[in-house]
């Protein structure tokens, strides 16, 4: 019995000792929610956005900025001006300036990979314009980071932006035969930020920006279940179709030379029709027209990717998964001469509550 008492006393004593680790009380730290980085004149320029919780329950913003040689250096520079430690546990958004993205963002990604406190759901984007400026706008009472995060997330969920975050970017980046992509943002007014396209990467470097008009077709090609909306130009009048679900199915039709069949299946509903009364045959015409539009747009887009030697759809990865002893060195050459046969199947299941 005496021994047990001794053990219990020892346990209690050690409880006090083990509490002796670094504490991070939420009121006493600067919670970094946004991180922006760009390169100018050979130096990295970074800023970190911190929410400021005000008495009237609205959320203000504070931005730390610094210059340095490597990304971590920036943070320690910022730390010098901060009254409380900056912690990265709640980092939601990370923006790259276009100049830095064109030079390659691998050194920043290394920080994100190495730091265990950074989550895989971090939203990444490329910024057209000044990165520091985008944090300094005034986007409502919920705080700037909340606006920017929701802007990206809701567009991915119900609109034309394909799914991207740190996990997807790294998965595409490290996957052989697939290239990564990120959304492009531009600050248009003091209180609004616009999604202006998709940045296409070759390895860690940005090589091209896809125009926002093509985002819907791009999303059809890269995402599994797609929501989004598209305008259909048709002789009875322009119409707008919102997709409910979509599927893409890739088939390897031939190996020498490579020929891929891409079948896109789309279920959607009509949200707008300029032609007034809608007859049954017109819906079918509309479906046909949209099918034609999808095939045309996707074909030109893929041919464009081939010319630029990028593969965001992952045809290389697909070919590898269907071929034993696949050789990626040869693939680079053969991708250029690969052929694509794109077919589409559109089914408009709803036309709304009026005829």
């Amino acid at each position, binding site marked *: 019995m005496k021994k047990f008492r001794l053990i219990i006393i020892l346990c209690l004593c050690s409880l006090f000792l083990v509490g002796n680790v670094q504490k991070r009380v939420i009121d006493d730290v600067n919670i970094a929610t946004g991180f922006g980085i760009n390169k100018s004149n050979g130096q990295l320029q970074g800023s970190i956005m911190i929410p400021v919780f005000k008495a009237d329950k609205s959320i203000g913003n504070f931005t730390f900025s610094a210059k340095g040689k490597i990304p971590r250096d920036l943070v320690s520079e910022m730390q010098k001006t901060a009254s409380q430690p900056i912690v990265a546990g709640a980092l939601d958004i990370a923006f790259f300036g276009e100049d830095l993205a064109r030079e390659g963002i691998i050194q920043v990604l290394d920080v994100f990979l190495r730091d265990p406190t950074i*989550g895989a759901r971090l939203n990444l984007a490329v910024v057209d314009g000044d990165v520091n400026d985008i944090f300094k706008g005034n986007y409502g009472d919920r705080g700037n980071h909340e606006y920017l995060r929701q802007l990206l997330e809701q567009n991915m969920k119900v609109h034309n932006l394909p799914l991207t975050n740190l996990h997807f970017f790294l998965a595409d980046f490290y996957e052989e035969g697939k290239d990564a992509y990120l959304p492009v943002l531009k600050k248009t007014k003091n209180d609004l930020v616009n999604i202006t396209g998709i940045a296409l990467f070759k390895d860690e470097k940005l090589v091209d920006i896809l125009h926002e008009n093509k985002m819907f077709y791009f999303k059809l090609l890269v995402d599994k279940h797609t929501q989004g909306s598209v305008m259909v130009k048709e002789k009875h009048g322009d119409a707008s179709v919102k997709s409910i679900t979509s599927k893409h199915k890739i088939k390897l039709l031939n190996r020498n030379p490579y020929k891929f069949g891409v079948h896109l299946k789309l279920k959607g509903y009509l949200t707008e029709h300029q032609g007034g009364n809608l007859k049954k045959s017109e819906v079918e015409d509309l479906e046909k027209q949209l099918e034609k539009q999808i095939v045309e747009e996707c074909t030109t887009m893929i041919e464009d990717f081939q010319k630029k030697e990028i593969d965001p759809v992952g045809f290389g990865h697909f070919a590898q998964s269907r071929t034993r002893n696949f050789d990626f060195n040869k693939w680079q050459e053969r991708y250029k001469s690969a052929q694509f046969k794109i077919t589409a199947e559109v089914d408009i299941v709803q036309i709304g509550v009026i005829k």
Partner: protein
Amino acid sequence: MLQGSVQERMKISPYMAAYVIVAMQTGMGVLSYQQVLVKDAGHDAWISIIATGLTVHILVWIMYRICETVEGDVLYANVYLFGKIIGNSFNTLFIFYYIIYCLTSLGGLIEIIRTWMFNDLNPIVFGAIYLLLGIYIVFGGFRTVAGISFLGLVIPSYLMLSFLIPLKYGDFSNLLPVLDHTPMELVKSGYNMIFSFLGYGILLFFYPFIKKPQQSKKWVHIGLLGTTFIYTALAIISFAYFPEGLLARSIWPTLEMWKIVRLPFIERFEYLGIANWALIMLPNVAISLWCASRVAKRVYHLNQRKAVIVIACVCLIIVSLLQSRDRMNLLFEVHSKVGLAIAYFYTPILYLGLLIKKKVKTK
């Protein structure tokens, strides 16, 4: 000769044997086995896991045969086969093996806490508390150790649900084409997988504590199947979630998969997972302390309570010296090589030796 017979009231039910073995198997290996696995056989390595899992069944069958032949534990089998002096020196080696086992578990846990949560955690203080808990459990006898094994598996089992979320983000075409690697590469991966399965050897030591050993066989094999299934499922999820290049770079892929989990009440799931892992590691530490002290008691006729305190002190001193990735790797290496030798070489040889000796004696 004392065969280490055990009083009826200190024995455990047959099905509890499975919990002890599975609890001993699940440990640090689950967090990091994917990266050694993927080096050779890439995305086909799940086949190697199943194959290695099957060899474990054979070894466990041999272990049961050994214990049945001598009607006692491995310590008696050694003495029976090799004589008192050589047999007992063999037995002494088991004390060191289980000290190493305890060290890899405790050292690994401390390393993870220091990397992922608290950089400035004091390993001596944490180790001391953890080992005190281990000593306390061993003081309760083997029934308490088995009980902790049960709790250490059942309570954190909800963590399995958390892997459904990375499943959603996975790309299963990563697993194609199946069998894209040479048989040699598959064998190499299978060899690397051996270390993650280690721990079932504990059966050789607690066999006399099972009430109806015959009935426990069924449960132990079911438990081993469960371990194989979990390892395979987790490997498939990891291969789908990570591209190979990224998986080879991660030190703890399982923990990294939790980075994608975000629940309304907890932003970062790893913290919950690591905290739970402290409970999963508890049976490993308690069982290895129990086993090391049990061997000391049987071989040197020491008081088990005194032995466990001495062994825990030795563990604590070594743990405080293990403060870098290199030393941890060295320890893991030693542990896995010794474990491999015991499981795949020593056990079958011991069995063959016993068979021959029995034959000679009956003639």
